[in-house]
């Protein structure tokens, strides 16, 4: 065999940066990331409950923090992560029944998760803002 072997031109295995990021993939990542965030958000929950239990001084400290810009951003982020993870969880429970795997269905479910979580978070934020006494 005299002829030299030309290496076959094969397509390279595409990795994350090659893929067009599908919404379903993004929502899969979001589910894990929101869960990861909520894990540490429980520190805020524990602080809140212990602050109420500790008395007026402890509660004042908590209220000062949660009323600050950083506190408000954390609270909003926690609320969104909580709602998003809940809706993403409902999506997973639907999948657990063996339904919702079709090409249209899964796109629809992914879109419903992100749109639903943003909409519900906005509603909760507005209601919460009004409950806090509006603009102070």
């Amino acid at each position, binding site marked *: 065999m005299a002829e030299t072997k030309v290496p076959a031109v094969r397509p390279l295995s595409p990795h994350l940066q090659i893929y067009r990021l599908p919404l379903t993939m993004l929502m899969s990542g979001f589910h894990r990331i929101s869960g990861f965030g909520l894990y540490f958000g429980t520190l805020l*929950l*524990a602080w809140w409950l*212990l602050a*109420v239990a500790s*008395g007026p001084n402890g509660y004042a400290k908590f209220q000062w923090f949660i009323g600050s810009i950083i506190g408000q951003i954390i609270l909003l982020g926690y609320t969104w992560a909580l709602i998003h993870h809940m809706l993403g969880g409902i999506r997973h429970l639907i999948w657990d029944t063996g339904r919702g795997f079709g090409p249209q269905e899964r796109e629809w479910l992914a879109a419903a998760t992100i749109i639903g979580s943003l909409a519900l978070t906005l509603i*909760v934020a507005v209601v*919460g803002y009004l409950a*806090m006494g509006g603009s102070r």
Partner: protein
Amino acid sequence: MSTATPKHFRTPLAKVRGRGAARSGTEDFWLQRVTSVAGIPLTVMAIVIGILLLGRNQAAAAQILGSPAVAIIMILFIISTIVHMKIGMQEILVDYVPGESAKLTLLLANTFFCWAVGLASVFGILKLSFGL
């Protein structure tokens, strides 16, 4: 076919039963589903309770959080959430942390964190409920 005396008498099925790669069965998988189903109504109720408490002073917040219905809902929310997040974080650690010692250390930290935060939260509510 061998006629020699077998070295052990356990069947292959008995050896592998409940012994996947995680060396345990489907308990965590199932518990994660149970706590996610429980978490749906409990999360909605916890958000409503949270909104109800916004903008109130400590005395009012303490009274609402300490009332039996609210306290029970919050304790259920905390237990369900803590169990769920412990399994979730364990899954993340097992997926991403290379090296056995680092993984074991973080898994241990995960257990300690979940117990500490869960117990602290429940303690806060019980303290309010019992008026201590």
